[in-house]
């Protein structure tokens, strides 16, 4: 391992992220969302400076260290909004379970029908799970972490771009249902979008994100065994 390359890798990632925060505030769009914009910038700068991904591995290890604690911290919004969840327990949980299952089934069936490899199918199945959980869950379902990461990011962007329009067209107007749908399907980015619509939507979306992560973690390994 080359320490200079590691420091360079960390610096590029941190710089790209800092830049993306500025850019996304100035020109808000799914394409300037920090996760998409910093990934793209980091890949471009590393490629231009002829750093291969294997040489970036050490930097990756260091930078992803806080993903575990970040997942554990998801318990806090869940706890803070627990009364909202209890007040809407049946609609929220039924909607969440049905939605998480249908998006997983849809993508797995379609990907299999189109002849994608087992690795791609297993990596894409968990694309609606929040990123820090998805990259751990992918080890259990035997997919590819990088593919899953890409699918999760694109799913988040789709939720932001397509979600509000689609929910309008589908005549889903209740803030509860909208927040729940965005949080369940498009995890963190969907939750941020829901929070823009209303406080209630944002709160229920942050609950949905956490519960969907737990539910899919349990359901995906079982389902993928039989699909």
């Amino acid at each position, binding site marked *: 391992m080359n320490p200079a390359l590691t420091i360079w890798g960390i610096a590029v990632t941190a710089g790209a992220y800092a830049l993306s925060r500025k850019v996304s505030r100035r020109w808000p769009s799914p394409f300037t969302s920090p996760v998409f914009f910093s*990934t793209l910038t980091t890949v471009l700068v590393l490629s231009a400076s002829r750093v291969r991904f294997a040489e970036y591995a050490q930097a990756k290890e260091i930078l992803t260290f806080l993903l575990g604690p970040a997942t*554990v911290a998801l*318990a806090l919004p869940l706890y803070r909004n627990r009364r909202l969840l209890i007040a809407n327990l049946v609609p929220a949980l039924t909607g969440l379970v049905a939605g998480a299952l249908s998006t997983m089934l849809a*993508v797995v069936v379609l990907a299999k029908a189109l002849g994608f490899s087992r690795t791609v199918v297993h990596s894409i199945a968990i694309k609606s799970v929040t990123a820090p959980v998805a990259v751990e869950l992918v080890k259990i379902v035997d997919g590819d972490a990088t593919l899953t990461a890409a699918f999760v990011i694109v799913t988040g962007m789709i939720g932001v771009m397509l979600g509000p329009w689609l929910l309008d067209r589908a005549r889903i107007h209740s803030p509860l249902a909208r927040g729940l749908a965005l949080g369940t399907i498009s995890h*963190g980015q969907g939750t941020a979008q829901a929070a823009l619509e209303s406080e209630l939507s944002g709160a229920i979306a942050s609950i949905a994100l956490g519960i969907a992560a737990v539910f899919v973690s349990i359901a995906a390994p079982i389902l993928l065994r039989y699909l």
Partner: protein
Amino acid sequence: MPGIVAGGLAPDVSRPLTPGLWAEGRSAARAGALLILELSGLWALSRLGYFLVAFLRVPLPGNVAGMLILFALLCSGAVPARLFERSSALLSRHLPFFFVPIAVGLMDLGATVLSEGWLLIVLLGASAAAGLCVTGWIAQWLSARKAQP
């Protein structure tokens, strides 16, 4: 906190800056130390989660188990929520930063996936649309039914 205000608002010409800087530095160090303590707590819970799922052979990601443990601790009242306020705000605000390095792996996968990229994006769009509608419809229908007597 009072240290910053006193040091910042009362420019003492005889002893320029030093006391203010000292107090500011001390309060920053305190906040930093608390943050590190909070993060260590979250880290320990995450490790505990990984240990438990390995020990009990549950097919669940360890960090998810850690999250469930913290949720149980919060609900039981054993741990007050304010204990993790700083760190949870910081982690959720900057979550993309910790996650970007994994997505950077795409630079190696490039060609294989990109050739079929558009097809995969269509798949992701179609399945996301199905999930959004199913979740929204069911939740809206059930909560409307509940509201009616």
